[in-house]
């Protein structure tokens, strides 16, 4: 799994590439912790290149969500492949996260 960040004005777009599982989610967590350290308040996470996410990955995402809420930050998610979307739906997390079809729509009004 690889994480790459792109700054767009005051917003950071975080693109993840690869499976998020027991082995890789700790690295994702580190990448997310870096956001807090830099006090980044607007984050879009792009899931286009994520074929699979397990519960540890979802938990890592929830932890970020909680952290963002605490600092009045904003978190959006975009380009979620069908299989991953199913995981969000089964766990009802699609109701928690703001999910957009693509980066452009996620950036709109952000």
């Amino acid at each position, binding site marked *: 799994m690889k994480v790459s960040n792109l700054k767009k004005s005051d917003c950071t777009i975080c693109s993840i590439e690869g499976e998020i599982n027991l082995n890789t989610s700790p690295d994702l967590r580190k990448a997310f912790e870096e956001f807090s350290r830099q006090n980044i308040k607007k984050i879009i996470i792009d899931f286009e290149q994520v074929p699979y996410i397990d519960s540890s990955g979802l938990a890592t995402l929830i932890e970020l969500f909680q952290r963002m809420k605490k600092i009045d930050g904003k978190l959006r998610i975009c380009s979620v492949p069908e299989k991953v979307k199913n995981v969000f739906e*089964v766990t009802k997390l699609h109701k928690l996260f703001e999910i957009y079809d693509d980066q452009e729509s996620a950036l709109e009004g952000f």
Partner: protein
Amino acid sequence: MEEKEVIISLRNVSKYFQGKKIIDNISLDIYRSETFVIMGCSGSGKSTLLRLMTGVIEPDEGSVIIKGKNITGISVEELDDVRRSFGMLFQYSALLDSLTVEENVSLPLREHTKLAEDIIRIIVKMKLSLVGLRGYESYYPSQISGGMRKRVGLARAIALDPAIVFYDEPTSGLDPVVGGVIDKLIKDLSSKLLITSVVVTHDMQSVFNIADRVAMVHKGQVVIVGDVATIKNTKNPYVQQFINGKPHGPIDFFKEDIGIKEFLEL
């Protein structure tokens, strides 16, 4: 349509207890991501079949093949490896009474992963929420109802995102509404997360709600395997008697029993 992938295969499996043939030459294929239901009367061998599939007990004859690997006679370490991808909800699976609900569900995560405590806590909350038990984290098993304990067991069974989940009577002792919630969860896990489910149940409502295919076991043999429509429409008298809950038919409840005279030693 894609070629169906066999994920569990029983080949001519037999098992004896105290000289009695409890499982009698069963051959069966279960496909990836289907919900496969095993039904049958009490004592027909359903739980035994599940224990054979999960490697808890070994067959006396035949073999059990999981994802192409014959697990009969392999080492404990190898078996542990295969079972890492299993979730198991046993008929009488007990929670640890000295641990809270949260601690019970986190056990497999603590044992098999190196995840941070905070992450484990969130996963446990997610799993408890899936079985409708959000807010019960700090309760002890003795403080919740039997149906709730069962749901905690289910949350624990799916803690590690298993590829195959084995359920022994998941809805017994639950009220119909909660039973329906559990049925939907089992169904969703299969259809949306492509998890394979093997479910033992008496609950006909549940069978028709969740099954892709059904096998009926009678006296250690499989009398029929088919989809729900096949089971509903079959003229097989065992199946008809079972699904309609008729006291009379080829399944003779008393035949095996000794007479009342002998019983009372008259």
